[in-house]
């Protein structure tokens, strides 16, 4: 394994330093923690939108700190949920008098640590803390036999829409309602050409022969739900999109937003090749694409592969998705 790092155990700390050095006008670090918050946090009178999770998904989460998106972002160790005490510190730092909404990806670690943090926050008198759990990964059945669907790239859309709602002055219950609407209407399916390699382990998390790919992969180097022979980009695009559409079961002619997301080591060229077929397919099915994002939004270290996300839009969601945002990783001019 070759990586541009120093010591594996310093990677999260040094990455955060590098982010603050790059974007001092957007972010600052809560001293002694791995939490970054907006440079101007807490924002007086605005609902704070906070998120967090394991590192290794950059630009998620801290890349989305700024006007119109996140107020706080906690970075855990690589692929490991942040600890409850740090989450609690983040919540306190983002409380501007209108409450805080936590956007949690559905992993037991994330949920348990956020729940513990909220309990701790309540003990300190912070009572206006709500959370939503994003579980957009359609690869995983939501049944008694799983811990529910995973939260993956659809989370970015929750950040965007909840962030825009908070920015225009919506109150906590309204922001939460909108965030939940996104959670309800979004689906994602991913695939990998290669495994990723965590700095700690230094070897690929799973072995994938040169003629096989993994379908239904998550964002933590977990093996996928199915291994198949290599397919072309069109076949991959079809498989992923079909699975998401099946799950969402949209009305005819529905208006949607899409993300073709790279896993970290996928050339943008390839993402556009995939997007070509995704858009063709949506068009064939008569769906109307309002927003179309292509790039690295929710990555998995150096994994090669992609995911396809579809969100059902209505007027209020589309307005918020197109509203201004100014963050290191996503800027929307919104005019």
């Amino acid at each position: 394994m070759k990586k541009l790092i120093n010591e594996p155990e310093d990677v999260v700390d040094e990455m955060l330093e590098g982010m603050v050095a790059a974007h001092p006008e957007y972010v600052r670090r809560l001293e002694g923690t791995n939490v970054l918050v907006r440079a101007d946090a807490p924002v007086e009178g605005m609902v704070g939108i906070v998120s967090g999770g394991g590192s290794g998904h950059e630009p998620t989460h801290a890349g989305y700190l700024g006007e119109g998106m996140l107020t706080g972002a906690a970075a855990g160790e690589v692929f490991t949920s942040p600890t409850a005490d740090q989450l609690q510190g983040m919540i306190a730092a983002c409380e501007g008098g209108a409450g805080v909404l936590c956007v949690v990806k559905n992993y037991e670690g994330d949920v348990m640590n956020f729940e513990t943090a909220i309990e701790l926050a309540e003990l300190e008198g912070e009572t206006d803390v709500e959370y939503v759990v994003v579980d957009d990964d359609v690869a995983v059945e939501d049944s008694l036999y799983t811990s529910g669907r995973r939260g993956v790239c659809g989370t970015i859309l929750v950040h965007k829409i909840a962030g825009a709602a908070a920015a225009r002055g919506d109150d906590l219950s309204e922001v939460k309602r909108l965030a939940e609407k996104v959670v309800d209407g979004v689906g994602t399916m991913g695939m990998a050409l290669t495994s990723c390699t965590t700095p700690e382990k230094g070897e690929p998390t799973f072995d994938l022969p040169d003629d096989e790919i993994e379908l239904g992969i998550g964002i933590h180097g977990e093996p996928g739900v199915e291994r198949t022979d290599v397919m072309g980009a069109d076949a991959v695009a079809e498989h992923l999109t079909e699975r998401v559409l099946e799950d969402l079961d949209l009305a005819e002619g529905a208006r949607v937003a899409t993300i073709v997301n790279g896993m970290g080591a996928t050339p943008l060229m390839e993402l556009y090749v995939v997007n070509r077929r995704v858009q063709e397919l949506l068009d064939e099915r008569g769906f109307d694409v309002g927003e179309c994002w292509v790039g690295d939004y929710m990555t998995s270290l150096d994994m090669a592969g992609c995911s396809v996300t579809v969100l059902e839009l209505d007027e209020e969601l589309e307005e918020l998705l197109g509203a201004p945002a100014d963050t290191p990783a996503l800027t929307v001019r919104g005019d």
Partner: protein
Amino acid sequence: MDEGIQREALVATLAAIADRIESEKDHLTDLDSAIGDADHGANLHRGFQAALDGADPDDDPAAFVKAAGMALLSKVGGASGPLYGGSLAVASSEFEEGITTESSVAFAEAYLEKVKDRGGASVGDKTMVDALTPAVHTYKRAIEVDDLDPLAALSKAVDATERGVRFTTPIRASKGRASYLGWRSVGHPDPGATSTLYLLEEIHDVAAE
């Protein structure tokens, strides 16, 4: 047991566990690579190292165990952080009157209870609960029904835990990251169950000395 000796035993146990986790770190991570996300070894190592570094030998038993739990809670992260750390912190209150045979049973039960509560897993979901449940049930029966002394009871509990770990291999996961794999999770032991066994082995071995 006199208080001074109890305190020494607690420090020795924590040191033994931290040591054991260090030497099993890569193995635990390998297990987590197969059906999880390859961090269980690193997570626990970071946590127990911090717990050991922060341990105050002058604490009474309840405070000592609670401090260890809080250290895990703030250093481990992931699913195992709140499970190991939070449960230790909560169950530690059973030691407020000192460590006795009875309070050790109460502690074990409270710990299992909190793990199940926080994580929502039951036996058969292929988690640490599958290792903990036979451990706690066997320990309690050995003491309360068979009248064994704590060390003999612990020894039986370790055997029972081992069977619990082995039981996790042939079943499908319904909780934790391994559940995403569906049927592909069958055939691999659960990392958290395995680390639970290591903890119990160390507790037993230190007690035996």
